[in-house]
Every structure is written in C-alpha cells, then in structure tokens.
C-alpha cells in the first residue's frame, strides 16, 4: 500500500479518528509541561529579567507561523500535482491556525519589545516580515471564503499560495535591504537560538514540541470538519436532484 492511500478521504477519516485524541492529549501534555516548567522553574535572565519567560510562547509560535505556511505550500503542490482533495482541504484547514500563530508571535514580540527595546513596535526586518506574512494569510483565507465551487477555490488558492510564497520570500529580503537603507546595523532583532543557555533551552524544546503537536491536531480536526462539510454538500445536492 502506498503512502497516498492515506489521503483517500474515507481512509483519512478512518485513521485520524483514533489518532486525533492522542495528538491532542500529547500536545496538551507537552504544552503544560513546557509552559509550567518555563514559567515556574527557570531562572530570570540577568539582562532581561523575567521577560525571558516570554520566549516559551514567542519562539514556538513564530516557528509555527512560518511552518504552517510551508505546510500549506506543500499541500497546495500536492493538490495541483496529484489532485488529492484531502490535501487541498488540509491547506485550507491550516490557514486560520497559521493566523493565530502569527498573531501570538506578533503580540508576544510587542510585549517583549516594550521593556527590552523601549517600544512595542519597530520596523525591524523580522517584525515587518511577520506583518507581511499575516497579510498573506488574510488574503489566502479571504480567497477561499469568496469562491463557491470547491475545486475552483482549491485550484485558485493553490496558485495564490505558490505565487505568494515567492513574493513572501522576496519581501523578506526586500525588507532587509530597506531597513539597512534607513539606519545601518539595526541590532534590535534578538536572535533567540544564539544565546540561549541550557536552562532555557530544554523547556523551550518541550514547548516547541507542544506547539507542533497542537498544530497537527488542529489541522487534522479541521480537515475532518472540512471533509464532512464537503460530504454534506454532496449529499444535499444529490437529495435536491432526486
């Protein structure tokens, strides 16, 4: 049996039913352990004080915001190449989750930025790229909502996702160019992985695992919903014809 068999809607519903609660449980466990560990049992950073605890939300959310888009891109490619309906629906299901992740990353970043840099928002390349990513998510979701025919919507959003990815990467580098043009050596951006000590690193890893699992669980659940909606529409259409 090939891997693609799992993408058959009926099979998908079959294997996700038992997997889903476990993924949720594991995600909840990881998040609880990671966040409690991070919040209660890690020391304050000597420079940043207690704000370092925001890292356990900020970094995983930012990571998932980008990974969600990549997952949507892969799902769109699979839909275009092999026309697996589940793939298109999974891309649709992932978009709102990606929006939430982007929002969390932006919000926690702003709160973290206020005491550290003295401002909630700076037009730093990294921050600006996330704002642009947020706009891309909104456009993608809006296009899905606007088109009635499901196959047309899947096709068009796939193309948008691919073209959007190219422009998102382009914007990322354009923004770097733009900000350096304004004021050189903007050292606002705080690179997390570079200076993180082990005390912070292990709970952070658990949190990242929790966010990844939560993302997977949410996408599976939302994809199941989308499949059911699709099936319901088909049944209703058949009844109307009969």
């Amino acid at each position, binding site marked *: 049996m090939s891997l693609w068999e799992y993408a058959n809607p009926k099979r998908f519903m079959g294997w996700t039913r038992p997997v889903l609660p476990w993924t949720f449980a594991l995600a909840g466990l990881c998040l609880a352990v990671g966040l409690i560990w991070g919040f209660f049992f890690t020391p304050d950073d000597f420079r940043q004080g207690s704000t370092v605890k925001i890292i356990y939300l900020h970094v995983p959310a930012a990571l998932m915001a980008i990974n969600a888009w990549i997952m949507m891109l892969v799902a769109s490619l699979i839909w275009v190449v092999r026309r697996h309906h589940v793939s298109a629906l999974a891309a649709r299901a992932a978009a709102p989750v990606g929006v939430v992740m982007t929002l969390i990353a932006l919000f926690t970043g702003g709160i973290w930025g206020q005491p550290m840099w003295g401002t909630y928002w700076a037009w730093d390349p990294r921050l600006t790229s996330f704002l*642009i990513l947020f*706009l*891309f998510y*909104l*456009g993608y979701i*809006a*296009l899905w909502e*606007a*088109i009635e025919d499901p196959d*047309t919507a899947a*096709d*068009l959003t796939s*193309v*948008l996702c*691919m*073209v*959007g990815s*190219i*422009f998102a990467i*382009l*914007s990322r580098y*354009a*923004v770097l*160019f*733009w900000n350096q*043009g304004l004021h050189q050596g903007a050292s606002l951006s705080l690179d997390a992985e570079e200076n993180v000590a082990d005390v912070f690193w292990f709970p952070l890893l658990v949190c990242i695992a929790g966010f990844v699992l939560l993302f997977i669980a949410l996408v599976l659940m939302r994809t199941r919903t989308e499949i059911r909606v699709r099936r319901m529409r088909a049944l209703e259409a058949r009844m109307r014809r009969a």
Partner: protein
Amino acid sequence: MIALLLRDLRLAVRAGGGFGLGLAFFLIVVVLVPFGVGPETELLSRIAPGILWVASLLAALLSLDRIFALDYEDGSLALLATSPLPLEGVALMKALAHWITTGLPLTIAAPALGFLLSLAPEAYVFLLLSLLIGTPALSMIGTFGAALTVGLRRGGLLLSLLVLPLYVPTLIFGAEAVRRGADALDPTGALLLLGGITAGTFALLPFATAAVLRINLR
C-alpha cells in the same frame, strides 16, 4: 497579439475612464497628504518619495478589476481562450495595456506632482526612472490578481487584499531608489533590484495568470 493590445487600448480610451480616472486619483491622493501631515516643506520633501510611490500604487490598483471583468462578462475572454493565441500572451498583452493606460501616464505626471511635495531636485531623474522600471511590475502583478478574482461578482475589495501584499517588494525598492537619489546616495542597487523584480514578474506571472484564467473559465 498586437491587435489585441490595440483593441484594449481603444476600448480604454473610448470608455474614458482609463487615462483620466487613475491620474485624477493620483493627483488627489498627493494633494490630500499635505492636508494630513501639515505644510512644512522639509517634512514634505522627506516623505515625498514614499507618498508618490504609494499613491501611484493605489492609482494602479484602482483600475485593476476592469482588466478582465468586461471581457469575462461579454464572453470575449472565452473566445480568446479558444483562439490560437496562447493565453499567456493574452495575459501579457492585458498587463501591457493596463500599464500604457495607467502606469505610463502616472510616470509622466509624477515629476509634476513632485513639485507640489517639494521633492529634492536631484531625485526627479530617479523618480522618473524608478516609476518607469517599477510600474510594469505593478501592472503584471495586478493582472494576476484580476485573473484570480475574475469570476467573483464582488471581487474588487478582495482584489486589493490579494494584490497589495504582493506589491511590497516593488514598493520598497522603488521608493528606496528615489530616497537614495534625494539623499545623493547611489541608487543603482535599488534600481537594479527593481528591474530584477519587473523582469521576474514578466517572466513568471503570465504563466500563473494564464493558469488561473483557465481555471476560472472551466
């Protein structure tokens, strides 16, 4: 292909909206900005490159939804799709027609409006140059967006939401070139990158546009 281009241009001129509306909108946006930020010449000349670029971007956006809408409604788009002309070529010509009716007039009018905002004298050349290089990319990206939303009855607002994020790199490089020109820095890097974006969009987006049109005409 040339015939198609000429036909689109004739239609735009006859409909009257093509040249006039976009330009008038451009003028109004530029005139409104000083009312909003105050009349200090120094401030205005500092933000002039950005305003001129953002205003031309909005003016280009204004006429996008008409690129395919009329042809879609009266069925000539379906005819074009079955004609021997490849749909990629149609997309290219549509973008070109849009550029000639909006981008080119904007480029020519922009220096005059630069006066209103007391743009630095050294920047005029680069304003003209950056708009000349950058506005074709705006038209091409816009044509792609218009193709995405052609089947929708109320696609106008959605079109802006889809297209504006795609405009970000063009805007950044375009405005940056003018700003560097105004600050007597070397703007060739920004201009080259802007040219790269325009070349890239014209190389890739006609195919994406044609694919999207085929989906929408299915």
